[in-house]
């Protein structure tokens, strides 16, 4: 079946998103996005959407089923609160990509900006390049895979996310520590690299996770709490 073309130079954003929301099947190609916001947000049918060009804020937000492929760059909040399904981008994503995502897969072929996967709650995020500072901040569940480098304060105040980084880590955030790569982690990473179609050797990655020292607040230990972050 050929894709239906939706041209944002002749249609409004509301019309294009309305068409996507009304669809129950099929493929759609969106042209001339020119940084439009909230494009292809809220998709809950098994449709395939390809966007040819750069998108603005909150592209594919709340994504539920089907796939969204962005051929270009994305601004703040790509696939924020993704529930399931797949979102993929060929370029770079600005800050807060995959924020609060509850499930599904987000693949960023380029770099991700600050706070990638902030407060992630189950989404799997695979980044081909680097991630910005405070990525996976307060992450609760899911996996963050970084083929490049991570900037400062990776995994700050982490709950339960596994972070796999192939390159360097500028610094770990509070309560985030390097952890052993056990067989189940190698399996998870191998699976994620395969579904993300990324060519990398799991043996080259280091795993980071929560030291779990911030789970409970101990007022008597406040000084130690503030200084925590190195214990495992």
């Amino acid at each position, binding site marked *: 079946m050929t894709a239906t073309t939706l041209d944002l130079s002749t249609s409004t954003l509301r019309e294009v998103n309305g068409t996507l929301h009304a669809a129950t099947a099929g493929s759609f190609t969106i042209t001339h996005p*020119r*940084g*439009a*916001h909230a494009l292809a947000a809220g998709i809950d049918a098994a449709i395939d959407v390809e966007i040819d060009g*750069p*998108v*603005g*804020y909150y592209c594919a937000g709340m994504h539920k089923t089907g796939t969204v492929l962005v051929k270009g*760059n994305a*601004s*703040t909040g790509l696939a924020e609160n993704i529930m399931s399904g797949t979102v993929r981008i060929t370029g*770079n994503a*600005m*800050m807060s990509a995959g924020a609060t995502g509850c499930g599904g897969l987000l693949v960023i072929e380029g770099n991700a*900006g*600050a706070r990638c996967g902030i407060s992630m709650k189950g989404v799997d995020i695979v980044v081909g390049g680097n991630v*910005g*500072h405070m990525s996976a901040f307060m992450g609760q569940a899911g996996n963050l895979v970084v083929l490049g480098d991570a*900037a400062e304060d990776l995994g700050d105040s982490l709950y339960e996310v596994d972070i796999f980084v192939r390159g360097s880590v500028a610094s770990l955030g509070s309560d985030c520590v390097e952890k052993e790569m056990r067989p189940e982690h190698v399996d998870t990473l191998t699976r994620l690299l395969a579904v993300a179609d990324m060519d990398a050797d799991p043996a080259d990655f280091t795993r980071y996770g929560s030291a779990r020292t911030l789970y409970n607040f101990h007022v008597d230990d406040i000084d130690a709490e503030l200084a925590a972050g190195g214990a495992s």
Partner: protein
Amino acid sequence: MCGIVGLFLKTERYRPDLGRLTAAMLHEMRSRGPDSAGFAVYDEGTPGETRLTLLSEGAEHDWAATAAALEAVLDAEVAVRQTLDHAVFSTAGDGRRARQWIIDNVPDLDVLSHGRQIELYKAVGDPDLVAERYDLASRTGTHAIGHTRMATESAITTNGSHPFATGADTCLVHNGSFSNHNQLRRQLRRAGESFQTENDTEVAAGYLSWRLREGDTIDEALMAALEDLDGFYTLAIGIESGFAILRDPIACKPALVAETDDWVAMSSEYRSLAGLPGIEDAELFEPEPGRIYSWSLAA
């Protein structure tokens, strides 16, 4: 919220189009700041000539009388070019002295800018109307910065609109808010800076002007700003023959930069950059937190 844009032309190629390109960038930021707008445009200026952009809020102002009085103070001729409630005074006299004299002696005027290269316009209302009213599109020059405001820190007034300029050819636009501006304003007043509003961003402009006047380079001034300005901010800064960007170390306020051989542009959102000539091949990046970016024509 607020939207900020900056365009710095590294080569002569698009200098005839500076105003048109800046107006188009500002247009895309209307939704981020619908209540007021402003812009500063830099051109190469005339050797030995200082310009002051003045704003008269409210009643009709007798520009000729003010210019005549200023001529006596400066012992130099003052030419007047009026655009609605703004006027540009051109003089061979001392610009900083002229600015201070007007602030001290003509209370119904605001001195929006002074310097060899800068003119600055601002007003309450739809950013497109503001750009149209002061004919941004027809302006030529080397660089421009603009702002669309959604007021948070002080009231929706013309003199609360950005950009803010206190020192010669130095102005900035700001997305965010500062929390220590009252304390800083007091300190800067003691150091000889004068302020015309209660706005937090004017304090940041005054801070940079003070540092530059003390001999800092723009990079040194911004390095000091990282220590002394408390708050959250993305700043676009215009200086004589130069342009700079700074984000606070948390960097929650958006910024995107595009650069080609001919120009550097920054905006709160990609939409503003989408229409620039050659954007398809531009290098695009998100400025890193707490890192100083600056460009200069002087190099």
